[in-house]
Every structure is written in C-alpha cells, then in structure tokens.
C-alpha cells in the first residue's frame, strides 16, 4: 500500500502580545513547539507551519491572547 500523501493543513497562529501575562501555559502545552517564550516570557510564534490546529493553546490561554486561523479542526 503506497503511503497516502497526507495533505498538510495550513493554520495561522496569532498572539495578542499586549494581553499576554507570560504565564507560560501555551508554550508548555503546545504539542508541536509552535509557540515559544521571548525574553519577557511572553508567547511568540516560532513556526506556524508546525501547528496542527488542536487549539489547546487557544482554549487554555487565560487571557484570550491566541487566535488559531485556518480550517475548523
């Protein structure tokens, strides 16, 4: 059986820096290392291509800073 070519979905990852309180939840929970912290501990998008659209970050950000765009998971 040939490898079915997995069609990779594209997601956009947006972080509203002014509301981020550097709590670290998003980059601790992200399963794909899409988000990392800057020198202030605030969330920064390392590489949106890694995002699989699971929305764990969006659902667990207590300050509503993260928006995942792209197809509905």
């Amino acid at each position, binding site marked *: 059986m040939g490898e079915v070519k997995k069609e990779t979905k594209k997601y956009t990852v*947006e972080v*509203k820096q*002014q*509301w981020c*309180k*550097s*709590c*670290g*939840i998003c980059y*601790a*929970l992200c399963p794909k290392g899409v988000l990392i912290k800057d020198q202030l501990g605030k969330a920064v998008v390392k590489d949106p291509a890694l995002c699989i659209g699971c929305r764990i970050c*969006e*659902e*667990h*950000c*207590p*300050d*509503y*800073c*993260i*928006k*995942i765009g792209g197809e509905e998971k």
Partner: protein
Amino acid sequence: MLIDVENLMRSHRLPHIWCPGCGNGIIMKAILEGIRESNLDLDKTVIVSGIGCSSRATGYLNFDTIHTTHGRAIAFATGVKLAKPELNVFVITGDGDGAAIGGNHLIHAARRNIDLNVILFNNNIYGMTGGQYSPLTPHGKFATTSPYGNMERSFDICNLVQAAGATYVARGTAFHTKMLIDLIKNAISNKGFSFVEAVTMCPISYGRRNKMGNAPDMLKWQRDNAVNVKAAQKMEPEKLAGKIIIGELHRETAPEYTELYEQLIARVRKGAEGDGQ
C-alpha cells in the same frame, strides 16, 4: 481568542484582573462557550457573582450582571429567578464565597431545586485576600492561615450539593475545557438546580505555597490527577486517593421551584374565582 465569544464579553474591560496563570479566565470562557452553544437569549440571561477572585467575572460579561456581597450571590439570584422565571440565571462563585460564607444559601437553593446554573471556581484558596485556606483546601495543604498545614478536613462540595437536593451535579477542570463546556451545557439544559465545580488553579498563592510549580504545571497536575467518573467506578478506592473525579456526577428530575410557584398562583387564583373570594 475571543472570536466567537467576543460579543458575550465586555472586551473593552480586558485584560482582566486575574493574575498571570490563574485559571479563572479559562473557566469564564468555558461558561461563555456553554452559553453560546446553548443559544440562549442573551438579553434574557443574568449572571450573578459574589465576592472574591472568581466573582470579578461578572464585570467582564456582557449580560445583565450583579456583583453582589460575599456569599450572597445565590440568594440574589433566587430573587431574580423567582421574580422573572423566563430569565436564564447563572451564578459564579468561588470555594470561599460559595462553600464558606455562602454555604447556607447554596444548600437551600439546592434543596428548593430552583433553576439556577451555579459554577463554583474551585482554586482551593481565598485568592483575593492573599491566600487563606478555604473549606475546599485539602487537609495538610499550606496557606497564610494554615502555616503549619491545613488541619481541617474539606468538603466534597459536589456530594454536599447533591445531598442538599441539586438535580444536576458535575465537576470539570480548567485543563479539560471541552468537557467543562459540555458539563455547563448540560447544566443549562437541566430544569432545576445545576451545580458545576470547576477545578481551577491559583499559582500565586496556592500553587506557590504548596510547591505545585507554575501555572502550566498545575494544569498538567489536573490532567494527570483527574479521573473520569465512568472510569473511577471501576477503580479500587485506594487508586482514587488524591484524585479528582470529573464528569457528570449526578442527574435526576424533580419539580422546579419557580414552576411550582406558577402552579400555586394558578391554583390560588382559580380557587379565588371558584368561591368568589
């Protein structure tokens, strides 16, 4: 982000007051998702809160809201619901506000089975006043007023509310947001007293004093220590020690208070016409 719940929030009031890593923001959003997915009439939805960290939520929620006095949200909400039963009435309370000073109102509203959706944010601590233990702080845990470890036993607040007569009781956590939203939707659809304990975290006071790491660690603790009620039924009690049982814990049907009162009015008024009172 807020895309779908933006209009349910007074977003011009954000960012909110809660500390970095506090789980209350997660719980508040789950409530809004629950309301949105239940397609309630937003103009006919009232949210009542008491005093404490959890209860600052009403300031951010774009509904008719009341930020009442400490422990009394459920009593205020009883007045709202009985006076105008067509309103959907929610109560947001904390482990201190709801289980300590508000305990008397909690058990009586449950006994009456009045149709209120009560969400108790349980972060095991009085956060707003700087970290004192509450009736839901586990035995042995540290707080500013239990510097030698909490010598008291804590409530199982879900059992207590169920015993008092609540017809829907559930427990969820800030980590299991999807489940929490479903539990809140079930609470909304239950015609009677619905109670959801939302386990959340206070990294600043409770987490720090009890060496639970930072906010993400506390969320992971929830992930690793929560056991679904269905699984728990098949597990040995010792295995469940220290775990938190999540999911729908109790559901029954019983007459709802405001409906009973409407029937009483109809009976009295018909009686009055009958004998020309």
